[in-house]
């Protein structure tokens, strides 16, 4: 996947965007519905917050509620972006207008950017219009205006909208009809609902720096998804890709078989995957460094990390024997088993965490005692477990990389299946290694 973004003619992008914008606002009922929601929700929320303040709600409660209200105000219009994007891409495709558009000299990137810009413009205008109305109606005279939190919220909203639009493009490449696209939109709505719940929880925590971190993550997510959408958005994909072929189960079985065929042996595979393996290997020292700094500075309270460390120490020390070995082994196998499906959803971050998380705990433990004590606690079982985690982490990172890599010619499923097959084949070696590590841990403590 090329890291550079293709060049585009901004004038052409503006032409496409203007038409789509005009189309989006050409239906009076649609405008009325959108404006009504944009105004009704902020005004209703503002009345609720001010009413609570007036009738003696505690300051902390009113302040938290004021922020949660802001979250709802931007969330509802943001959800329009998905509908508008599906309509803009799949709808055009269904009405055959997209074929005409792709037969012009416009580049793929210009069509894509123009359509994304139009959807973003409508959605963000509604989000920010609502937010401005809400802020004016809620915070005026309240004596409380959390600028930093609101800016972080506004920023993460842009990224959420961008992520949903990019997701809609990816769906449009795989759905022939609006009905199919609406069903497939669940794949965006469900993860986004989790994201929004996390955001709501962070707002309730009332720590602006967490919201900024969240906004940063959303920027990365939006960039990755926009890039995926762009890579997959091609004339070829829109007009020629086979969709809805017969015998789907037979074809899926054949694809699965193909994924396992002609794959290299373990050592050759490790050589092929040296870059993701290096990233996974780097996770351990990076995690150790981060954990050490977190422990020293108290950035993460001891009350959060210490119980985890204590439970690990207890698990290793209390039950010696077969039961403890099985418990350790099962725990590690479970972590390895979850790493792959999570890698698809997290773009491989779960693979990185396989080494980063133990590294973090090691570093944190070192900050509370010393490096020699912490490392002594890891040895000798780490001699087997850490290389196994690096291999599993590297191969899971590869699965994640495959899941965010799209090509105009398609082949996404084949690439993800092949990377997963590599991981599953490697487990033939990794699971016995985990068993040895568990035995060592129990025997040698």
């Amino acid at each position, binding site marked *: 996947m090329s890291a550079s973004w293709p060049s585009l003619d901004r004038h*052409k992008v503006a*032409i496409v965007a203007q*038409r789509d914008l*005009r*189309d989006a606002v*050409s*239906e009076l009922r649609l405008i009325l519905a959108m404006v009504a929601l944009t105004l009704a929700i902020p005004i209703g929320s503002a009345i609720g917050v001010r009413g609570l303040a007036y009738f003696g709600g505690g300051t902390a409660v009113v302040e938290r509620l004021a922020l949660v209200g802001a979250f709802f105000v931007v969330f509802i219009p943001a959800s329009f972006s998905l509908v508008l994007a599906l309509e803009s891409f799949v709808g055009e495709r269904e*009405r*055959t*207008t*997209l*074929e*005409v558009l*792709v*037969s*012009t*000299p*416009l*580049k793929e990137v210009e069509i894509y950017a123009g359509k994304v810009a139009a959807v973003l413009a409508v959605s963000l205008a509604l989000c920010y219009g609502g937010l401005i109305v809400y802020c004016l109606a809620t915070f005026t005279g309240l004596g409380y205006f959390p600028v930093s939190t609101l800016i972080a919220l506004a920023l993460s909203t842009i990224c959420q909208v961008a992520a949903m639009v990019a997701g809609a493009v990816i769906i449009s490449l795989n759905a022939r009809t609006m009905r199919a696209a609406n069903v497939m939109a669940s794949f965006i709505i469900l993860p986004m609902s989790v994201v929004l719940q996390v955001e709501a929880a962070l707002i309730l925590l009332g720590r602006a720096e967490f919201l900024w971190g969240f906004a940063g993550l959303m920027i990365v997510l939006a960039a990755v998804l926009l890039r995926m959408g762009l890579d997959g958005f091609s*004339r*070829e994909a829109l*007009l*020629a*890709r*086979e969709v809805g*072929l017969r015998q789907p189960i037979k074809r899926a079985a054949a694809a699965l078989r193909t994924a396992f065929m002609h794959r290299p042996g373990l050592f050759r595979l490790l050589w092929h995957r040296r870059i993701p393996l290096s990233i996974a290997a780097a996770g351990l020292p990076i995690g150790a460094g981060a954990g050490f700094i977190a422990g020293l500075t108290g950035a993460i309270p001891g009350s959060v990390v210490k119980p985890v460390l204590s439970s690990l120490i207890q698990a290793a020390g209390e039950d010696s024997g077969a039961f403890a070995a099985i418990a350790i082994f099962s725990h590690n196998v479970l972590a390895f088993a979850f790493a792959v499906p999570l890698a698809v959803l997290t773009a491989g971050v779960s693979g990185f965490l396989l080494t980063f998380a133990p590294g973090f705990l090691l570093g944190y433990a070192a900050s509370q005692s010393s490096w020699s004590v912490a490392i002594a606690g890891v040895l000798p079982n780490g001699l087997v477990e850490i290389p196994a985690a690096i291999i599993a982490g590297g191969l899971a990172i590869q699965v994640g990389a495959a899941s965010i890599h799209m090509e105009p010619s398609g082949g996404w499923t084949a690439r993800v299946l092949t990377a997963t097959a590599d991981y599953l084949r490697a487990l033939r070696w990794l699971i016995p290694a985990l068993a040895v590590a568990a035995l060592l841990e129990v025997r040698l403590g």
Partner: protein
Amino acid sequence: MTLLEVKGLTKRYGDVLALTDLTVSVDEGACLVLLGRNGAGKTTALRCMAGVLAPTAGSVRVDGIDAATEPAAVRERVGLMPELPGLYERMSARTYLDYFGSIYDLPPQTRTRRIESLLELFELKDAADRWLGSYSKGMRQKVALIRATLHRPRLILADEPTSALDPDSARRAWVYLKDLQKDGCALVICTHSMEEAENLSGEIGIMSAGRALAVGDLSELRRKSGLQTRREVRELPTLQDIYLAIVGNHRDQHERELAESRSA
């Protein structure tokens, strides 16, 4: 000068071979008519010629430009009119045509002048400010034809350009296309109308199951079909007779091959 040169063009969609080894060429001011049943590969051929789809094998050159390496430059020189007009329902004809004119970088004055004269020619001026969603099938097809030719392309690729038009409008459309042809524009037309194909007096390609079974002018096709030597045909065979003979022979041969492969 050869404007369109297609050599060994093959296009595969996954397991489906839509087009196999198509070789045709069209000179400046000439016309190629593609005949064939639905699914014969005509639309795929047009899309590849328009630089919209990349060939699986073979090459397409328009005005000397390779469609595989410079598809955008090819699309600038081509006007594609797909079978379905693909119009934006909530736009007026005037705004719609202006939109496509601006995509092709036509200066505002030029595109206004051309749009107005073409709307006049196709008797759409009175309806030009109505939304396209309210247009009849024939009116839509006229707008699609104007859109495809607005930027004065060197090559026009049209899939059944007059199928929805009344006889008078169809005649007007053909006169317009022939005028463009006289100015050096090359035409590739897909049609099911044998009469239209005969009247266009250019080369004719007969396609079936993704293959070009025969390409040539009417007399060449007569010879290839073997019909001109048959005594029972008192008059010269029509294109309809030729088409049925060629496609029928191919189908018989195809069925024989299938039966042989089954028995083997």
